[in-house]
């Protein structure tokens, strides 16, 4: 299954998907040293997003979140790609400065946690293998 969305940041990555219906705040919501979601009550609380394709509806919270993503990339705790239903500026800028492939305008209900997926940020496509 291949879905066509909008390219946000270039690059290709293949990894296991981790999917949530909740928004993500990188500043305060994720521990950049461990890559774990720490927001209390979040659907992914306690789970690591490192090395995975992170699939969520949209970003939220402080604009400092873009820098948090950059820090995760440097710490090797960042997701390898991001898929959103609708991108927000914090995550978009975070992907650009951290060079994380990103695609939005994807119906994320088609993707399930654990599936192997390929994100092509240069083409704006997401393929579920």
């Amino acid at each position: 299954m291949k879905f066509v969305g909008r390219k946000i940041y270039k690059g290709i990555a293949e990894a296991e998907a981790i999917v949530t219906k909740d928004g993500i705040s990188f500043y305060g919501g994720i521990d950049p040293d461990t890559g774990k979601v720490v927001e209390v009550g979040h659907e992914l609380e306690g789970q690591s997003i490192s090395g995975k394709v992170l699939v969520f509806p949209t970003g939220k919270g402080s604009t400092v979140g873009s820098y948090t993503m950059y820090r995760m990339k440097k710490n090797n705790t960042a997701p390898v790609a991001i898929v959103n239903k609708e991108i927000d500026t914090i995550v978009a800028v975070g992907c650009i400065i951290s060079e994380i492939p990103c695609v939005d305008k994807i119906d994320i209900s088609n993707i399930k946690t654990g599936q192997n997926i390929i994100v092509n940020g240069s083409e704006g496509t997401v393929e579920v293998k």
Partner: protein
Amino acid sequence: MKLTQEEQDMLDGKFGKAAKKSMEILTTLGEIFDAEYMVEVYGVQIAGVSYANLGEAGLEYLNEMAEDGKVRVLTTLNPAGMDRENWQTLGIDKEFAKNQNRAIDAFAKMGIITTCSCTPYLIGNAPHFGQHIAWAESSAVCYSNSVIGARTNREGGPSALASALTGKTPYYGYHLDNNRHGEVLVNVNASVKGTDEFGVLGKIIGDKLVDLGKKIPYITGIPLATIEELKSFCASVATYGGTALFHMEGITPEHNKYPKPTEIKFEINQADLDKTRSELIDDDIEIDFVSIGCPHASIHEIAEMANLLKGKKVKKEFWITTARPTKRIADEAGYSKIIENAGAKFAADTCCVVAPIKERFKGIMVDSAKACYYGRAKNKFKVKIGSIEECIEEATR
């Protein structure tokens, strides 16, 4: 997006790495928000300056940009995490000070004026009506759009820096006439006076806008307002409502430009002001900290405080947060001496929102509704709002 040859050259890396990365950020944002092209900006104000918010990651990004990045337009900074001259007196630790200075050095290397203030419009980074700018501090964004009539979106730290390094911003959002008309009519049927009351008004309107899912209020019933009252209002309505633009009949320059909204409206009466004020006063508060200057105190407010503090002694920790140039005017005018003789302290370049003072105090009294929000959420203080006179009364009691 349609780019000029120069913009395309920046994107292709002909102007260096930092300009390339910056243009990538701006064109991506432009494409997300359907901007057709870029506009030149007159000036930039950058947020994400406090080391407490930046961390090593943010600092690393700044250093990377500073390798070959140079600003192309007038650019100043938001408050830092400490007073750059007086940090020891204010109890900031050495390690933090060292890191904060590393961040400011990176900004300086890029040619940014390292004046750290949330009121750039009071210290010379002041656009005129209609000019395009790229500002990040939410209260200053609201002030510049509404009170000055300049045009900016609510930028984040990296996107504002990108505009500084390219001199451009994508033409969308509040830069366009179409997106600047009032959406909700707000009639104020009460007399509103003082920075504290304007902050309370900002919270009422901000909260209501969130409920309505709207952003731009058109406010009537305010016959007169000072710069200080408007900056307090801007800080509050931006904090509670995410508002980047309002119109105020008879006060703001674009109030006649667009039709008054008619479909969605609400009234604010004295009882609403009283109720919301009481929400900004915590039960059983024990005040051990008083702070004025959110947003940064103007020279007018400092003169007023000097007058009230003359010959008195404060018995609680008392900070006046302001911009360094404003502090220098206070020094020259003799206000600083009066204020410091009373035991109050200046905290220039910084503020209570971004300084690393979490849990250092039990209860804070302020004249700012924005400071109440961050006092509670970020610093875990109990809070109380009052006028400048009431704050000084509390501090000297």
